[in-house]
């Protein structure tokens, strides 16, 4: 089995991933991180898939509203949200992480569902809890919260602990 890493790295230089100098875990859990611009995100993941990353392990998001000064590689414009996809290569036992910046006023990003059908529930969860929309997702509905819920709970400006529960006759918020 040839190692897809060097070839992938060369390909990804064009697609926007650069050798990151951000703080990262050392030792066993380090992995390559790609920081594509939003319009090259799908393309970069597609090239990773072509170079042997068969499975999408995880897809989630982070709201950096209250932590704007985080370290990012040069040339990456920080957005309020970051969608994080962890890809896994079963054939070469490697992981790669793709972090794409998503601005607050236009929280939309391409879906990975056409590449990895397993992204379906994960992107629904991110939509539900962060309000980030995925272009091309077949069924972008809430998944964990009730259908009539207002707001997206994992956003940093969404309060915690002061929301009345939905059952009838429950005492009001403290």
């Amino acid at each position, binding site marked *: 089995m040839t190692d897809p890493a060097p070839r992938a790295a060369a390909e990804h230089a064009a697609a926007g991933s650069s050798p990151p100098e*951000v*703080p*990262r*875990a*050392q*030792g*066993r*859990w380090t*992995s390559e991180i790609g920081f594509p611009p939003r319009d090259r995100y799908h393309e970069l993941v597609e090239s990773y898939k072509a170079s042997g990353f*068969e*499975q*999408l*392990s*995880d897809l*989630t998001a*982070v*709201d950096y509203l*209250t*932590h704007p000064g*985080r*370290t990012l590689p040069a040339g990456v414009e920080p957005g309020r949200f970051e969608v*994080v996809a*962890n890809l896994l290569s*079963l054939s070469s*036992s490697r*992981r790669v*992480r793709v972090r794409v910046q998503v601005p607050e006023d236009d929280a939309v990003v391409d879906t990975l569902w*056409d590449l*990895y*059908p*397993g*992204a*379906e*529930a*994960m992107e629904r*969860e991110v939509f539900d*809890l962060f309000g980030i929309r995925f272009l091309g997702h*077949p*069924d972008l*509905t*809430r*998944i*964990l*919260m*009730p*259908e*009539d819920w207002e707001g997206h*709970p*994992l956003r940093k400006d969404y309060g*915690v*602990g002061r929301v009345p529960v939905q059952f009838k006759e429950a005492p009001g918020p403290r």
Partner: protein
Amino acid sequence: MSDAPGFPGADDISVRRASRAAVAETSEGAQELATRTTTPPAELRREVGAVLRIPEGGVVDAGDVDVERPTDETMIINMGPQHPSTHGVLRLMLELDGETVLRTKPVIGYLHTGMEKTAEELTYVQGATNVTRMDYLSPLTNELVFSLATEALLGVDIPPRATWIRMLFAELQRVSSHLMWMATNGMDLGSTSMMIYGFREREMVLAFFEKTSGLRMNHDYIRPGGVAADLPDGWEDDVEVICDTVLRRTYEYDELLTGQPIFRERMEGVGNISAQEAIALSVTGPILRSTGVAWDLRRAMPYLEYAQLDFDIIVGTYGDNFDRYAIRLNEIRESIKLVRQIVERMPPGDYRVQDRKVTPPPRARIDESMEALIHHFKIFTEGFRVPEGEVYVAIESPRGEIGCYLVSDGTSKPYRLHIRGPSFVNLQAVPTLMRGGLIADAVAVISSVDPVMGEVDR
């Protein structure tokens, strides 16, 4: 809803209004399974399985999908969330043609308590008590992945004894979780004696956990920096008794279930999935291994000290329910093999890192040292600070890959904690496993996925 003649109160307008209001309150709207005519084409193609042909290099043939199928031929029924065999509060909506399942859609979220949001309000010291409640059938695995992620950001190396204690508990946890699965799977298929036996053996393991950590479940035993307490005196004997008894009893399960014609009839060839489909749907754990893919993070990307141990990865061939049963049964035996090796090689030494910034000082030191008192106070009020950074740590839980994506902004609370729950992702395989099968096998299929709803909904 038609008014049944003679039904008391059926004409009472207030009763009818109340029942209509109840229906509206429990509706999940677009999250539910819709009829073919009202479902968008892309979504319908996914539900009937056409989309999965993309990874195999083909193109979606829209003609394959019978969008125009008359709705009076099929029926959409609801199953759960209150159903004894849905392992908690899983709700499935099934489209049936007679007894054949055409489409399935899991509706989840009934156990959502916002644990990832809660984690942002808790320090790293308190964090393990939160994550341990996610997958409540293997709480130690949750604690382990959280601790490993925290330690990766902290950059601390934990003592060897702590690592080996963690492995011991992770493997015993796998035994207890699989025993629980054997029990509930037996119950779902009508073998109630298996349920009694499975719970009986699991209780032995839990008794050992209680002896060590003080609790049967939700231990908060594996913490950032090591484990909460050293192993109790005579632990080798306790573990030896567990290994001997459980191993002997797995052969009794063989007699009870493995060779039993009715059991095999209900398991073989039911709930099939191919390796390609499983990989595309991000499925891991026994479901992926049942398709013949020998993927186990303990072997493929070793963590702790698994690289030093000798064990086999159990794989299936057909990707059906029986393969998943056989894998879990044999993984109990493999885990016992691992536990025996760990007992033999358990090193002496500290069970937690002696770094006062991470680990509170021993109780006795507090009385005599001002420094110790300050450290103790700081760790339990403010917590320790974790350097800025982000990490994704993934380990093999009994259900598959459990991942922890942890972001720190340099304070003593996680900026973001995301747990990649194997059950959450594996549930995506349910529509594929169910497709074309019989409604009578639905419960067996849910059972073979082994979802833990606490982890699915978090």
